[in-house]
């Protein structure tokens, strides 16, 4: 599989602060990549380096197989970006903003411009917004317009820094649907966020940034793979304890975690002993647990180094 985003030992220092500290991103074609990290962990700085806005202190960035920022003129027209927050010329309408942006760089023919602008506005749900100036837009409308700008040239790669900022739950769900649809159409999506739920619902791969270091990078399915235990709910936890004894890993009220990768086998055992079972499930860590575990250990390590 070809790498769409690859960085090698990427470092950015702001004075004494290492905002990004030697990260090796690996985003492949067809991924929906969730780039997670707490506030100030360096997500935006990384995104800006990917796009050639911030120049790395050291290390390399490769975007769509070419070195950035050198190949920016060839590569960036194929990349759609939303960086931190949308920004527009307030006295102009949304459509005019998009037309100006399209005309400002290579790879957008003026003949198709009007049609493409109308299409993306429709796509992000701003089709009927008319000639109102952007000053009169709500926060959510501006966010949608920003996304429309990113989609304007049908990019192969979308780099989105917190794209659902300021959107209401319906808006978030709508954007999620839109991103999944684009992904089905072959677009690779790189999504930075600190909303774990958003990433869990959307992403196939996850990278976790903690104080500038990439502490985790893996498929979501691998990270949240079954732990080899089964979760059992029963009104009679004591009898389960008595029956299975050492196989019980944890008890929390009527919820027990029992060693054994096959819920059916665990169930047969319990039912055979006449213990009622109200719920049964494979034990999987949530993304939150995975992220907190990874970020916590690395936080200690950074502290120790200082």
């Amino acid at each position, binding site marked *: 599989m070809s790498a769409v985003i690859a960085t090698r030992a990427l470092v950015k220092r702001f004075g004494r602060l290492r905002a990004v500290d030697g990260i090796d991103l690996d985003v492949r074609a067809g991924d929906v990549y969730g780039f997670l990290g707490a506030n100030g962990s360096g997500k935006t700085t990384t995104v800006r380096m990917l796009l050639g806005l911030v120049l790395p202190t050291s290390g390399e960035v490769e975007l769509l197989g070419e070195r950035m920022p050198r190949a920016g003129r060839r590569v*960036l027209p194929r990349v759609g970006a939303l960086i931190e927050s949308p920004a527009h010329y307030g006295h102009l309408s949304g459509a005019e903003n998009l037309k100006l942006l399209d005309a400002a760089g290579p790879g957008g023919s003026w003949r198709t411009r009007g049609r493409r602008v109308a299409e993306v506005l429709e796509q992000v749900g701003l089709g009927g917004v008319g000639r109102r100036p952007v000053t009169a837009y709500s926060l959510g409308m501006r966010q949608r317009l920003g996304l429309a700008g990113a989609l304007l040239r049908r990019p192969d790669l979308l780099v989105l820094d917190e794209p659902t900022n300021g959107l209401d739950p319906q808006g978030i769900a709508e954007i999620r649907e839109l991103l999944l649809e684009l992904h089905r159409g072959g677009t690779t999506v790189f999504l930075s966020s600190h909303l774990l739920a958003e990433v869990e619902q959307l992403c196939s791969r996850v990278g976790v940034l903690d104080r500038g270091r990439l502490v985790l990078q893996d498929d979501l399915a691998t990270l949240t793979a079954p732990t080899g235990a089964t979760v059992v709910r029963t009104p009679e936890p004591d009898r389960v304890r008595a029956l299975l004894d050492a196989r019980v890993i944890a008890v929390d009220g009527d919820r027990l975690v029992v060693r054994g990768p096959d819920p059916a086998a665990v169930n047969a055992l319990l039912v055979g002993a006449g213990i009622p079972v109200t719920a049964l499930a494979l034990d999987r860590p949530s993304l939150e647990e995975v992220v907190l575990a990874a970020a916590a250990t690395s936080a200690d390590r950074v502290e120790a180094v200082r």
Partner: protein
Amino acid sequence: MILVELRKLFRRPRTWATVAVLNALPVLVAVLLVLTDLAPRPGEGPPFLSAVLSNGALYPLAALAIVLPLFLPIAVAVVAGDAVAGEAQAGTLRYLLARPAGRTRLLVAKLVAVLAFVLLAVVVVAAVGYVVGISLFDAQPVAGTTSVSGTSLSSGEIAGRTAMAIGYVGVSMLGVAAFALFFSTLTDSPLGATMGALAVLVASSLLFTLDAASPIAPYLPTRYWLAFVDLFRDPILWRDLTRGLALQGVYVGVLLAAAWANFTTKDITS
């Protein structure tokens, strides 16, 4: 890209408001002159103003002389200071560069747009001055006009020399624009960039009046601004004019190179 920048600049209400304000003062002065008939005596007040009561065709020059010390530089510094820093403050700079507009291209396009504004401002001030001049004052279409040196100039000569004066003032303003554009690449605050450029001009004007600063006086950016008056001597006194052009050329060249060097290597964190 250049067309995009021109469209942005001239679709902006503020650009036209600036031009309108720029013309308000010369028009007001003209009206006051007509109503009171009290022209400053020759050698006092802004150049050419004493002559306009007898010849309205000179009013474009008087208008330029009126706005030159303060209004015109402020207008140019506002527009040029806004060029890059304004985009940075609005956040649109990062989207332009990620589009990618190209840093050098963007800077060149901004420069051309600022240039267009300088030309527009100077030409509009002269044109409005002309209209105001010939409608409010006596025009002398045929008879010779007296040059600053006392000889007479034909109206053809006046027209040609006025055009040269407009060009010269334009070049002087280009120096202001270069300062403001350079500061505009340094900061994310358009106000800061504009103020920086104006501070340079105020400092330069102040030093010019100071005897102790006479060793550096020939290198002050505002030193030769008023040399366009020399175009109306007979014969034209070229010495200060050419020095003025050369000085502005050096300032513009150095500052634009510095702006380019800074802008193409800078982190865009706005």
